């Protein structure tokens, strides 16, 4: 059995305030689903602190693809198949029903069991028993939501993932900049590094176990590589000039980055095992913000070689870059969708900076956000949502929008600014059925 890194992000117990997520625009045509509160089959005094059914329902509702039934509207509250009367749920016009139970399973362990039903056909669609622990119960609930989401939409869920982001707040009159990691629903936020100087550009390794980032902690920028689970870190580059914009290759063996050690910013590729550097672009313009195609064959980057910042693509093996964006005077910070056919980027519309998606097949650009200063877009690993940084009044907050633009969420901490969100990849996990 493989170890699952997924549920182990203990980090340093630097518990910080949770991010709250509010759906600001829901999709029409969301699937009606009832998630009944899960039953507890253990001693009455030992009910788990995490309510699995609530977490599952919140995940599904937040995706915008589902409309969940309020618990108060339920006519019955079954926790197992033999208690289900489908007439109760047909009367409420539910299409799908989830019931489940949590029971003790050895010292510190739980067994989570759930069943998903098609209400109209009166049949079970799927069901699982998942052994877990008190510590991992929340993650298991996200995993249950992933299974339901994938079963009903045909697309993998991305609830059991994380986001990394930078916060900027005042603590005892001093500015503290922190790189934090939280669950994708905003819970369990933890600081992995903090500094009085800027922290920038977090980038996940493809297995979600490491973050590369830029820190100015010594008064000059350097790229660091930090293990998220242990906190161990090492400095990768601290050349004269810019050390910025790290991006892991899909196989995790290489890091694309921006260095200006030779006089102006160019893209380099570092072999992480050998620590060797290979220049990829060489131009007097600003070349920065590299991002890999999912097949690892291309790198897109921002360059103002044509007079304004635009997106270019270059083969990883080298060669002449091709310009990809032509609409608008400012396109920057591109990254690939998991399908490899689209890029999300920052585009200027009028005087506003917004999140766009460029279709690489027909070169059409659609704008998904409506802020003045939106930036740092990052796809969820299933491609369903894009998380980005925006402003609410004078505060920096995070927002997410579905790739079709129909669902919008806002994510905010209670104080301070939040910026530069990056969605984690999927964590390695067993999906054998």
């Amino acid at each position, binding site marked *: 059995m493989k*170890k*699952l*890194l*997924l*549920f*182990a992000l*203990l980090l*340093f117990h630097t518990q910080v305030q949770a991010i709250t997520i509010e759906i600001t625009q829901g999709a029409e045509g969301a699937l009606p689903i009832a998630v009944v509160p899960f039953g507890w089959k253990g001693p009455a005094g030992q009910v788990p602190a995490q309510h699995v059914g609530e977490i599952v329902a919140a995940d599904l509702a937040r995706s915008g693809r589902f409309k969940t039934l309020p618990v108060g509207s339920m006519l019955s509250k079954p926790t197992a198949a033999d208690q289900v009367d489908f007439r109760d749920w047909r009367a409420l016009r539910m299409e799908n029903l989830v019931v489940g139970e949590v029971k003790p399973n050895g010292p510190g*362990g739980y067994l989570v*069991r759930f069943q998903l039903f098609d209400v109209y056909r009166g*049949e*079970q669609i799927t*069901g*699982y*028993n*998942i*052994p877990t*622990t008190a510590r991992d119960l929340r993650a*298991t609930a996200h*995993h249950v939501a992933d299974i339901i989401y994938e079963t009903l939409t045909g697309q993998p869920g991305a609830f059991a993932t994380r986001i990394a982001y930078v916060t900027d707040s005042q603590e005892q009159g001093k500015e503290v900049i922190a790189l934090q990691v939280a669950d994708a629903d905003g819970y369990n936020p933890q600081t992995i590094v*903090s*500094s*009085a*100087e*800027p922290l*920038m*550009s977090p980038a996940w390794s493809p297995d979600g176990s490491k973050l590369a980032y830029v*820190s*100015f*902690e*010594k008064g*000059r*920028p350097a790229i660091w590589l930090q293990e998220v*689970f*242990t*906190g*161990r870190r090492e400095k990768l580059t601290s050349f004269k*000039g*810019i050390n*910025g914009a790290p991006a892991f290759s899909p196989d995790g063996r290489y890091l694309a980055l921006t260095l200006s050690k030779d006089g*102006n*910013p160019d893209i380099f590729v570092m072999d992480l095992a050998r620590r060797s550097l290979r220049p990829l672009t060489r131009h007097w313009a*600003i070349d920065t*913000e590299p991002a890999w195609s999912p097949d690892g064959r291309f790198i897109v980057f*921002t360059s103002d070689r044509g007079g*304004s*910042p635009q997106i270019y693509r270059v083969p990883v093996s080298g060669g002449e870059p091709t310009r990809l964006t032509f609409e608008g005077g*400012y396109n*920057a*910070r591109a990254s690939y969708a998991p399908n490899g056919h689209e890029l999300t980027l*920052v585009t200027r519309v009028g005087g506003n*900076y917004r999140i766009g998606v460029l279709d690489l097949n027909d070169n059409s650009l659609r704008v998904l956000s409506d802020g*003045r*200063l939106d*930036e*740092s877009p990052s796809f969820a690993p299933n491609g369903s949502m894009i998380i980005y940084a925006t*402003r609410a009044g*004078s505060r920096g907050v995070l927002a997410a929008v579905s790739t079709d633009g129909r669902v919008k969420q806002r994510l905010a901490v209670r104080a301070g600014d939040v910026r530069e969100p990056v969605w984690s990849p999927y964590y390695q996990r*067993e999906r054998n*059925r």
Partner: protein
Amino acid sequence: MKLNNLSWIMLALAVLVLAGCGGTQTRPDSGAQVEERGGAEAGGAGGAQTAGIRGGGAWQGSPLDNPDSPLYVKVIYFDFDRSDIRPEFIDKLRAHADYLNSNPQTRMVIEGHCDERGSREYNIGLGERRANTVRTFLEAEGVSPRQLETVSYGEERPANPGHDEAAWAQNRRAELVYQ
């Protein structure tokens, strides 16, 4: 109804035993607890005497601190998405070049900064371009490259935390920080 096809599938989510995770509860590298960077406005060349009272004419302290000297100006501003030096700052930069030329042991860090619009790493590039424009100007005026260093903070260190054109104009800047 009977759920005869009820087949519980054991999703064997391993209870995660992370190797070595027991020993990792403390932040192992406190290197990011960093010392304060010298304030950009402090501006004092080493040992500058600033106690002199302005009276009767002559400035007693370092010329860098004399409000009547062009050297007093240590922040120069740029237009949006531009890195060329605006005409009103040429005299000021020439005065700094003269000062550095007559004080060859004095070193200066040129910080490049941007307003918050656009992407952060591109702004790091733009901030460096601004700092380099100032460096190139000073070197053309005879300043030794050894006396100069550049660093770009992009939009990460705004001088004015506001979000309007007035704030942005104050944030598109190069700061001349004497060491």
